[in-house]
């Protein structure tokens, strides 16, 4: 931890300070947790106070909020979506079902551990987490960005083989994604 802090340059510190104030969340209801997002976004809880607002396309978004269980069919779309997002990008796992299957632990159709497929930045436990929990976890994420520790997105570039192997195993065959992750990592000099 200490090592990381000293490695940050002054510019990086400033940029983390400012970037944390603007987080755009991809407007993708992947599971039943999506029902608690409208209250979080609208008048009652209003998460735009923290600079978090819903965004409609993956290109513009910073946060991929996985609102609950992912069926294998959705997981494929989520992986494609994640790869279209532009780094730095953060995956937030929402609800118990993203952590270890939750109440769908014996379902044949939903994946159990989100972090086998995508690098997860934060988890929100509960079924289903309340809007206050969503806001609290976003505040944790903001604090993490401020400290310069929210770097899990780099994992996807570094350990791409691991993630790719897990994805292929679940989809029972290699999937064609439109991004060449390794070439991207080399091009943008991500280490």
């Amino acid at each position: 931890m200490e090592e990381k802090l000293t490695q940050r340059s002054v510019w990086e510190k400033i940029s983390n300070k400012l970037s944390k104030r603007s987080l755009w969340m991809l407007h993708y209801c992947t599971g039943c947790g999506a029902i608690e997002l409208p209250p979080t976004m609208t008048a009652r809880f209003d998460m735009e106070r923290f600079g978090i607002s819903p965004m409609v396309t993956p290109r513009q978004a910073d946060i991929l909020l996985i609102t609950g269980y992912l069926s294998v069919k959705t997981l494929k779309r989520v992986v494609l979506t994640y790869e279209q997002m532009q780094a730095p990008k953060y995956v937030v796992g929402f609800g118990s079902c993203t952590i270890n299957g939750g109440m769908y632990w014996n379902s044949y159709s939903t994946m159990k551990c989100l972090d086998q497929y995508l690098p997860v930045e934060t988890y929100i436990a509960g079924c289903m987490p309340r809007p206050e929990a969503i806001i609290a976890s976003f505040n944790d994420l903001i604090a993490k960005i401020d400290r310069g520790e929210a770097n899990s997105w780099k994992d996807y570039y570094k350990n791409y083989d691991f993630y790719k192997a897990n994805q292929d195993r679940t989809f029972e065959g290699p999937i064609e994604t439109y991004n060449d992750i390794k070439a991207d990592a080399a091009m943008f000099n991500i280490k």
Partner: protein
Amino acid sequence: MEYELENSIIDKMQPEFPEAAFTIKKARRVEVKMSSDKLYNFAVRMQKKWNFLHLSAISCVDWLQDNEFELIYHFWNYDEKVLVMAKIRIPREEESHFETISNLWQPAKFFERDIHEMFGVYFDGSEDMERFILTEWHGPPPMRKDFITREYALNFFHYREYDPEWLKDMTAAGEANE
């Protein structure tokens, strides 16, 4: 008289299907068991003659020990306000076949497609028997009784190890109860 309405419905239908077994389950619920080859005729009469305009659902039950699938058609009449459940049995095979009623009722399309995916019963004559929900599924039809979802899930998916001390007694108690 109790079940006046239901009895009048049965009186209407019984003459045309003498071998079908009608029973009144409770108010507004009439059950009829018939052989599978009569069903299409019955469905045509239901819609055209007896004015059962709403097909509420088609359910399928897998009777593994009898080696049969049971199909249950739930018809609802908007005017007389009665639900008739027509039950038939078809043999259980690798890919069972049955005739479609989707040319009579549009909603049947969805239910038949669903039964095809979940049980592997093919409905001949339907326009569209493509996969709908399980397009990325590679296993057997999952709702068949011989498919055990727990085994499949435990083998196929990755689980996070979580085995704290305090949970052990509860897990043991639960397993003893199984």
